[in-house]
């Protein structure tokens, strides 16, 4: 019964989404306030029905209703409750449901908090949201119905893929989707601006918080996915340049560029056309990501059932929205009024620099991801574009960008003084040189690694320099500096913290890739492996049982310089329902570094192959991302950027749209 109600709710949601698409847009064209007024309540109704449908799907999972095909395939009555809930989106159909649910949530938020948006902008934006929702609800209902029944119902389900039976599934997909789908808001606003043929600084002020929120979630989602792959797949890689990872990285890069260009648009009324284009591109890349992951073009952890009709359907959606978006852009962008002037060396110039390199980096990832697919389609040759390609192209393009990062926030708007900024960054550069030299002396390794560490320190110190300079610390008395510090807008701290996070992340990346230690050995009970300053002794091996698996666990004692540091244990789990084994790596964190142990199969003579890795400062990679997201959160908390914030009094009437 619940399943039927869920499906019924989905159909109603589709009907309403079609209304949401057509009526407000018509109203905006006719300048009819009543028709435009339909947008918000309908968007909320869509949200209500989609929430009900999603809730119904969760309910059939929680109650292990094996008369629903989707539940049979992806659940098992003995799974812990949390995995019964998360397995709702651990499959193609449910994952699309989550996608649409998040989309409805975003549209609902615009409807709720957009009460001081100009009517036409709001109506058009919600209409575009309605179009996206209609397309994806249609996709679910026509090709990926999660509520399909199975008669007769089997007594037991086939269990969730063991790799997905992990808390990561509760966090990674929702965060990632909040990011992916959040970018649809930027897209909808861009389309609405193009439909109206006008755009101004106020537009950027509406779009920025949404983009910032989407970016924040995307950052956390990608970081979480990376950490999940790191501990779950058993060999300690944190980024594979896998097409599916690239699919999430591309929207992230575009969103990062969009955030920065929207600043220019908001503050200086410039780069309008470019910002609109970026908003379209960022969401297009989200759609391309969805297509790559969901169509089965790629085989990967994320490619659930591949079904050609689904691929074609998503390709259709993709063509419609990307093509439609770019067509609108081509037709209407010329009508947008040009904005403020700026010298090449200025804050605007720095943000343009940022945008150029970020988009070029996005393009390089795009080429590397799609070139093999295109080549295979055209010539039948199968090639792999692996890490070396991305390290060279992406790395090569990010290097100038991160070097320029500390300069940007210190430059003045309109016309900056590069020499003056360089002088103010002398101290930061000094720290960077010291860090680089100390690293080279203490750790050795390639010169490039020491340079990269210096660069990371430069970014971090440069981010702090910005705050120090603005507060006048060292130049004015302490109480004055404190008062100034308190008076700084939160978005200034947000920028500094986010940039600091990039430096933190870079240190982790360089350190892990350069100074990791690895031992592979076949060991018997009592054998010792030495790695760095630590000795690991194979103490015992035992059987354990989980709710729906049995495990063979190897326990190693860690000693460093004669002192015991506890144990680390790795195990292999056998999941009976699927006859599938997974490796659970053992991880011990020491400071920011980690000891990583994974075990292979046991041999008949009792020996076990194990891999032990010492990963120095590896946690900084993800902590850096968390710090970046924290910076995003700080900026979001800035009252000037708060969603639906009232118009600041000092803003001139030159922003007519904001005045309602």
């Amino acid at each position, binding site marked *: 019964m619940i399943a039927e109600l869920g499906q019924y709710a989905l159909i109603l949601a589709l009907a309403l989404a079609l209304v949401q698409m057509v009526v407000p847009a018509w109203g905006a064209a006719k300048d009819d306030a009543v028709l435009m007024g339909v947008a918000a309540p309908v968007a909320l109704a869509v949200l209500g029905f989609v929430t009900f449908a999603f809730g119904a799907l969760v309910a059939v999972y929680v109650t292990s209703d094996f008369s629903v095909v989707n539940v049979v395939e992806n659940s098992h009555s003995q799974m812990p409750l949390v995995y019964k809930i998360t397995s709702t989106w651990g*499959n193609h159909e449910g994952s699309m449901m989550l996608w649409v649910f998040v989309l409805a949530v975003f549209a609902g938020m615009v409807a709720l908090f957009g009460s001081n948006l100009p009517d036409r902008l709001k109506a058009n934006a919600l209409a575009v949201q309605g179009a996206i929702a209609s397309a994806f609800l249609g996709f679910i209902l026509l090709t990926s119905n999660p509520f399909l029944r199975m008669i007769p119902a*089997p007594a037991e389900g086939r269990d969730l893929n063991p790799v997905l039976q992990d808390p990561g599934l509760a966090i990674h997909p929702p965060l990632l989707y909040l990011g992916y789908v959040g970018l649809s808001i930027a897209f909808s606003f861009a389309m609405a601006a193009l439909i109206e043929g006008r755009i101004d600084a106020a537009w950027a002020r509406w779009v920025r918080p949404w983009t910032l929120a989407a970016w924040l979630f995307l950052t956390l989602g990608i970081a979480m996915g990376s950490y999940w792959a790191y501990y779950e797949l058993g*060999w300690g890689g944190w980024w*594979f340049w896998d097409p599916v990872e690239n699919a999430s990285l591309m929207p992230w890069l575009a969103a990062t560029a969009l955030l920065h260009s929207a600043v220019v648009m908001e503050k200086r009324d410039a780069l309008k056309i470019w910002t609109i284009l970026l908003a379209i591109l960022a969401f297009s890349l989200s759609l391309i990501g969805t297509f790559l992951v969901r169509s089965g073009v790629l085989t990967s952890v994320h490619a*659930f059932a591949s079904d050609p009709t689904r691929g074609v359907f998503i390709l259709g959606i993709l063509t419609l929205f990307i093509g439609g978006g770019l067509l609108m852009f081509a037709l209407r962008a010329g009508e947008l009024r040009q904005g403020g002037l700026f010298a090449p060396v200025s804050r605007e110039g720095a943000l343009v620099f940022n945008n150029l390199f970020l988009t070029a980096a996005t393009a390089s990832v795009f080429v590397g991801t799609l070139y093999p697919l295109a080549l295979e389609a055209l010539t039948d040759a199968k090639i792999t574009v692996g890490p070396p390609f991305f390290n*060279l192209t992406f790395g090569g393009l990010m290097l100038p960008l991160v070097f320029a990062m500390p300069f940007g926030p210190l430059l003045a708007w309109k016309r900056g003084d590069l020499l003056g900024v360089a002088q103010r960054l002398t101290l930061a550069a000094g720290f960077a040189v010291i860090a680089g030299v100390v690293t080279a002396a203490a750790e050795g390794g390639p010169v490039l690694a020491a340079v990269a560490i210096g660069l990371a320190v430069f970014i971090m110190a440069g981010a702090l320099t910005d705050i120090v300079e603005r507060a006048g610390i060292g130049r004015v008395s302490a109480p004055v500096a404190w008062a100034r510090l308190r008076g700084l807008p939160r978005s200034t701290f947000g920028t500094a913290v986010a940039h600091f996070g990039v430096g933190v992340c870079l240190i982790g990346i360089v350190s892990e890739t350069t100074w990791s230690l690895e031992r592979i050995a076949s060991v018997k009970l009592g054998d010792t492996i030495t790695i760095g300053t630590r000795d690991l002794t194979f103490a015992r091996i035992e059987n354990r049982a989980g709710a729906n698996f049995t495990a063979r666990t190897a326990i190693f004692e860690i000693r460093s310089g004669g002192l015991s540091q506890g144990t680390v244990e790795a195990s292999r789990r056998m999941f009976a329902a699927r006859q599938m084994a997974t490796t659970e790596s053992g991880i011990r964190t020491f400071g920011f570094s980690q000891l990583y142990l994974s075990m*292979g*199969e046991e041999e008949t003579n009792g020996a076990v192959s194990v891999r032990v890795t010492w990963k120095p400062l590896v946690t900084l990679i993800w902590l850096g991302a968390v710090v970046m997201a924290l910076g995003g959160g700080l900026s979001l908390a800035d009252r000037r950027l708060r969603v639906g914030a009232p118009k600041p009094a000092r803003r001139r009437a030159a922003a007519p749209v904001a005045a309602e």
Partner: protein
Amino acid sequence: MTRKSRRLVLIGAGLSVLALAAGLILTALNDTIVFFRTPTEIAQKQIAPGGRVRLGGLVEPGSVEKTGAAVRFAVTDGNHQVIVAYRGLLPDLFREGQGVVAEGVLQMDGTVSADSVLAKHDERYMPREVADALKKSGHWKEGEPGGPVPQQSVPATPKPAPSGAAVPSSILPAATPASASSRSPAP
């Protein structure tokens, strides 16, 4: 500076970044791409040793030899086979008779010294490139379970595995959940 000259600076900067990106991409594509090869292609195409290859096929049953953490196995496509040497942990789903992709350097003696070994992505599918290669060599029957051919709606009871199939099938044919990318590291 006039509006026009500023625009020129902007366009110039854009073009130079674009040129840099294009240059990097082309250089990298020349140097870093790796071709997927089947054992037959390696045997017949006289590929120069010393280059990187991605070798795909089935693990020849009975060919796996382990010495400590080092392992050697043969990859076959039914017509030819190539020996792979690897040091490290094999992925969870590595099995004799199952699909595998090994990436590494082709040696003078015709073996591949692998630094990564990928097995099937989950218990149902084999790597797509392997399935395609097997189709090419005629050792694949369309529509077999275990292959990449999707099956959308699910039979209520598991199908029995067809016996004697060239491609091993799984017990559970079904549309599916995600899969484990079982990779192994470079030693």
